[in-house]
């Protein structure tokens, strides 16, 4: 349940942005989850819910999954990350530190670990919606 720690980041980032935008209430928080990290959606939702602040009491958390797209720097191959055939330990490693992908995954065409994660890494706060102070 290290998802808690990431949720904590989402909640405090949303709070900071709401303050900057002088929102008196947050109505929706959209979170983008890169699939490389294999975040447990339910756990993340639970963690977000538990850490609600008064400002986001009634906010809806919208979670979007972004497929992980990898591109080889050597041969240009692009492919999707699929966690299926990885063992438990490797999955865990990538779950905690997604860059461990470079340790355990290889380009399916040329075998290189020198690839980019083009999309689908990490947990991001995509946007918040809310009601303006005095509005």
């Amino acid at each position, binding site marked *: 349940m290290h998802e808690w720690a990431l949720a904590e980041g989402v909640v405090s980032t949303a709070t900071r942005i709401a303050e900057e935008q002088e929102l008196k209430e947050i109505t929706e928080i959209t979170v983008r989850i890169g699939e490389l990290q294999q975040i447990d959606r339910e756990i993340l939702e639970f963690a977000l819910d538990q850490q609600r602040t008064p400002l986001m009491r009634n906010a809806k958390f919208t979670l979007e999954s972004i497929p992980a797209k990898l591109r080889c720097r050597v041969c240009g191959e692009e492919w999707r990350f699929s966690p299926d055939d990885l063992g438990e330990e490797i999955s865990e490693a990538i779950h905690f530190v997604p860059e461990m992908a470079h*340790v355990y995954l290889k380009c399916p065409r040329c075998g290189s670990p020198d690839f980019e994660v083009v999309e689908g890494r990490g947990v991001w706060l995509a946007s918040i919606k809310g009601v303006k102070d005095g509005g």
Partner: protein
Amino acid sequence: MADPRLEVIGRRLAGVKKIIAVSSGKGGVGKSMIATTLALALSRRGYRVGLLDLDFTSPATHVILGVEGLQPEEEKGIIPPVAHGLRYMSIVFYAVDEPAPLRGAAVSEAIIELMAITRWGELDYLVIDMPPGIGDATLDMIRLTPGISFLAVTTPSRVAFETVRKLLRLLRELEVPVVGVVENMVMNPSSRVRSQVEGIGIPYLGAIVFDPEVEEALGDVERLMGTRFAEAVGRIASELSQQIP
């Protein structure tokens, strides 16, 4: 799109009184040996100490500590396991003994991830074993941990000291505190490095002799702490802990 990790790093370190990054422009000067032994020495003086190995492409502290099979606990983040009294965090928990071919951008992401999820709790000292050079890890730690200070390691060699001088210049320009410079692997005592360090107004924390017993003590903490090397590092630990009691 905002990166929620950046928001919590400060909070993860809120209980840490002093962060010391053991660094050098150069590799092979003894950063890992000194970082590990300094952490152990502070711990044996009664302080609560963490050790973080940030040299992701050539981690060494786990070899020095002789730890195997350790794993962090997962609880609202990750809790570093305890190794010889230190709260200890290393990429080897995840990379095991596979090669880690990481570009700087990946090193940067991995550091931010680890800093965002690791719960150090209350610590008097967090000692960080840095990779050589002035790259992503150094720039990120300066950027992300405002309370950080650096301990620079050199050897008597001119090639080593040249690179350390550059590191010191950069740190000064960025107004990052430097607790001092350690001169390691000294074979023929000379005051050359000391006077150059003092000449630029930075504390010279002492010389550590080249100690052939160090190699035999790798992986055996009790033996390590009995070496002349550890004795010299212990004196530095005492001095540092007077600065920050």
